[in-house]
């Protein structure tokens, strides 16, 4: 046997042969299906976006065109991200809110995209994949709309916005 005699002399070398074969197969499937799959996912993502973008004070984080087909990251102003996730318990989504990482700082990524702290705290990331259906998208739209409305009813910041108060002009008593 040429080599170090690994694998009890079956074959030398420590290459993970099965994984290499699997990777090759995955690439073959991707080459054949990626283009159509991407289009399908993009349509679902756009369906989700269109179901939400007529609401007041909704902001997409990042460029809508130059972004992967399955991602939608939106901020719903005056609603805190984690409280929105609580309403979306049935869904696997994530928030830019840093409460989930035990830090009180908002997402540095969203800040780098130009979002102020408040919009960064109010963001939700939806990702769509191979197994997402149109029904799930429609269900999500309903759930999100209802939750945002309910949480805006709870929000002092929404009240202030409705009263025409500029939140940047307030001296907040933070600690």
């Amino acid at each position, binding site marked *: 046997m040429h080599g170090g005699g690994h694998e009890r002399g079956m074959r030398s070398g420590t290459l993970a042969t099965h994984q290499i074969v699997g990777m090759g197969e995955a690439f073959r499937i991707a080459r054949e299906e990626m283009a159509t799959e991407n289009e399908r996912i993009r349509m679902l993502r756009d369906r989700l976006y269109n179901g939400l973008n007529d609401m007041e004070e909704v902001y997409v984080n990042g460029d809508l065109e130059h972004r992967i087909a399955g991602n939608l990251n939106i901020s719903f102003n*005056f*609603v*805190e*991200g*984690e*409280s929105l*996730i*609580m309403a979306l318990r049935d869904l696997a989504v994530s928030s830019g*809110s*840093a*409460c*989930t990482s*035990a830090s*009180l700082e*908002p997402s540095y990524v969203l800040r780098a995209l130009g979002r102020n*702290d*408040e919009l960064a*705290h109010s963001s939700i990331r939806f990702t769509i994949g191979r197994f997402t259906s149109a029904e799930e998208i429609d269900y999500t739209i309903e759930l999100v709309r209802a939750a945002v409305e309910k949480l805006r*009813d*709870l*929000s*002092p*910041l*929404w*009240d202030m916005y409705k009263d025409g108060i500029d*939140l940047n002009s307030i001296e*907040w*008593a*933070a*600690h």
Partner: protein
Amino acid sequence: MAYSEKVLDHYENPRNVGVLEDDDSVGTGMVGAPACGDVMKLQIKVSDAGIIEDAKFKTYGCGSAIASSSLVTEWVKGKSLDEAAEIKNTHIAEELALPPVKIHCSVLAEDAIAAAIDNYRSKKQ
């Protein structure tokens, strides 16, 4: 995120959400900051005898923040200002079974009570 039953209950059925007319019998405390992801507004209506007759809240924040402020509006009703000032964040945290990372929500709720009482008292001067 492991929310306690009580936090979920306050989130689904928040108590005393709303706004009180801002007159001399009402104290308003607003604490926190949007940059921190937590803003609580607590209002108390105080009778001539110095008893809190009504309380309302509005909160921008996570489930624990909403629950803490909702709970506080329940607890202050019927109390005198001094009694309300004795409510400590530890009581709130215990009642809601808040995990360590959410203790600051109960602290903010305690601050909101103090701010509302302060505001009411400043009007009486």
